[in-house]
């Protein structure tokens, strides 16, 4: 006899069995436990029942199939219908999330809970601060397991928007993660967001790929220095190189403004062996030299990448050499035409 069938508390419910028919695709060897619980879930959903026992049932199903796309919504609506304790639910969700690192639905559920809770604390700065701290503590636990968990970072960005966490504390907490692992690209991306979408000084809605004239120069300078320091720590880490390019574009500055810096990692003497400490520096310089019209130097950098320092991408570097020449010819022709 099944768990629910034998339980007097569920006597009044007639489960709705699943109808798979003949020759179904992707049939799964369900356990009897799962098949029974799903039958009861369909029955309570059909009756629109929102009760304590529904919370138990949904918890049971989530433990077997956390990716069920409606059981979570049904659980949330039950919590709200019963006016159940949202903070207690959040702490239950913490445990489920720690056990299901890859699950998305949990984080959506958490957002629904926070959206529901927020109006009750929104007028009290102390309550908001306390809540933000406890959420950040929980995310720190999640990051201890996997500091690049995509869902946690999505939730983090939601929370920054919701609670207006464009703060020093937020920047410090990212720096802590980068001190543990300077290659944590998720943390780099989050920093870009917190710095360049800060409503205190950025243009509302300015895309990550756009120049934003409202960003103060000192912010641009600070971020350039931040990425440089990280690059000196690990020159072959692509994250700060990408970040540097992003910051320069935001600030409307040329790549060539950082030629000296990239040159720290690339020595190409007229005669003798070159000394390359970062393939990303070489890539950066290739773009700087192309920007300055030094086609031959740029081409040599790309050749070194494809032949020696980044051979797995040889096809790509060769293609870049091709486009460089095409652009060079086009520009050259334009000059000739102007001269006439």
């Amino acid at each position, binding site marked *: 006899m099944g768990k629910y069938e034998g339980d007097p508390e569920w006597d009044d419910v007639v489960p709705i069995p699943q109808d798979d028919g003949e*020759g179904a*695709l*992707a049939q799964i*060897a369900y356990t009897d436990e799962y098949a029974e619980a799903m039958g009861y879930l369909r029955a309570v959903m059909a009756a629109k029942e929102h009760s304590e026992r529904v919370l138990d049932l949904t918890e049971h199903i989530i433990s077997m199939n956390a990716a069920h796309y409606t059981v979570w919504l049904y659980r949330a609506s039950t919590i709200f219908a019963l006016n159940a304790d949202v903070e207690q639910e959040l702490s239950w969700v913490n445990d489920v999330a720690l056990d299901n690192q890859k699950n998305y639905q949990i984080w959506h559920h958490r957002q629904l809970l926070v959206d529901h809770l927020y109006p009750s604390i929104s007028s009290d700065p102390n309550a908001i601060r306390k809540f933000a701290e406890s959420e950040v503590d929980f995310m720190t636990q999640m990051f201890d397991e996997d500091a690049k968990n995509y869902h946690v970072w999505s939730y983090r960005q939601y929370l920054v928007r919701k609670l207006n966490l464009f703060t020093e504390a937020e920047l410090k907490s990212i720096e802590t993660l980068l001190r543990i692992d300077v290659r944590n690209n998720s943390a780099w*991306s989050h920093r870009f967001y917190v710095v360049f979408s800060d409503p205190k000084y950025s243009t509302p809605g300015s895309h990550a790929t756009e120049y934003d004239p409202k960003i103060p120069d000192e912010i641009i300078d600070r971020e350039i220095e931040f990425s440089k320091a990280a690059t000196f720590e690990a020159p072959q880490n692509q994250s700060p190189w990408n970040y540097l390019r992003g910051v320069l574009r935001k600030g409307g500055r040329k790549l060539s403004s950082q030629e000296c810096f990239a040159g720290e990692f690339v020595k190409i003497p007229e005669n003798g062996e070159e000394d390359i400490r970062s393939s990303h520096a070489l890539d950066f310089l290739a773009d700087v030299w192309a920007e300055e019209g030094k086609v031959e130097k740029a081409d040599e950098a790309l050749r070194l990448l494809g032949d020696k320092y980044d051979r*797995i*991408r040889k*096809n790509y570097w060769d293609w870049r050499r091709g486009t460089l020449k095409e652009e060079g010819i086009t520009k050259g022709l334009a000059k000739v035409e102007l001269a006439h």
Partner: protein
Amino acid sequence: MVEPKLDIERHIKYWQRCLKTLLPTQYTSTDSNRIMLGFFILSALDILGAGPDTFPEKQRKNIRDWVLKCQHPNGGFCGSPNHRFPDSYYVDVGHGKQQMDPASLPATFFAILSLSFVGSFEQIRRDDCLKWLKTLQRDDGSFGEIVTQDGVIEGGRDMRPCYLAAGVRWMLRGDTPLSEKEKGDDIDLEKMVDYIRSGQTYDGGISESFQHEPHAGYSCCAISALSIINRLPHSPSLSGTEPQGLTNIPETIRWLVSRQVGYTVEKGEDEEETKTPAPPVLQGVYENQPSAPTPSLQDEDSVGFNGRCNKKVDTCYAYWVTASLDILGQDKAQLLNTKASRRFLLEHTQHRIGGFGKAPGDPPDIYHSNLGLATLAIMKEPGLKPFDSALCVTKQQKEIIGRLREAALSG
């Protein structure tokens, strides 16, 4: 050296086992996506030349009936019979039927694709489905995955639903220009393009929004969606007035090719031992990177793919990256190190019982096995059918879908 070979017969056997026998209990966590699993099985067999066109008619009919059983009475499809109530529960509530458990966008995309393998589109509630599709779109142009009885749009806010919506729309509407009335019933393509464009990140990739980290899966979904609605720069029907979905293709290409990571197995290691990345000396390798790059790639090495900067290799990212470049056109997939990527898939993630695992040494699963095979098909592996990266089916199947659509429309 002798290049590894794809053992087609062994892969066919793997997929026939997936088709005919119960999937193990561990698949319970994917119970709500059974339609997707079903599609991956049918499609993989099609890539291998042993698709549903070779099945007996009785089997084709059973599959067709099963997929249609998952159709929601208000349009769209549910992800599994577990979300589908007996018909009598869907009572009329004045503005359509009682919703019970709503239809899902991923399920709808995979259901229509699956039906294309086993018959016709005539039993798809086309108009209901397209009306429902429109209700999934948010004001910012993004799509949710489900919409509740109260009209609340639920599900992630990222590039996947955009792709799925573009795919469903193409399969049911095609790409001929719409009349004014049809336009009113259509999803808002301009808003969708705006949403996708705003997902570009500072490093050239595409994320769920520009506030997050770029991801190869989202990048591919975004690029595929734009391709399906003809909004990539080289799209033949793109007029001068329609904005393109991507603003800096060279940066996107740089980000995509950067997903390649050198992968070598330490010498003398037993074949059956777990394979760990050798001294990681190449760009993109995550752990214990030395401070300087070393010119060390040997011809026998292989190249895997990660989905984000400084992450580990995974079979599915070989697909998301190769497909993205393939869609960007003009043989852009040739910018990848095809030979070494092929070696990575065949020597390290292909399993001896057929199929592919997520990472070297992992057992095969349906998702990674399908995408591993699809990657090889894009790379023009002999014995596999030519592949359409945007729709994620063989080119032949894409043509069939077009014909089924026309037949259903004129029928």
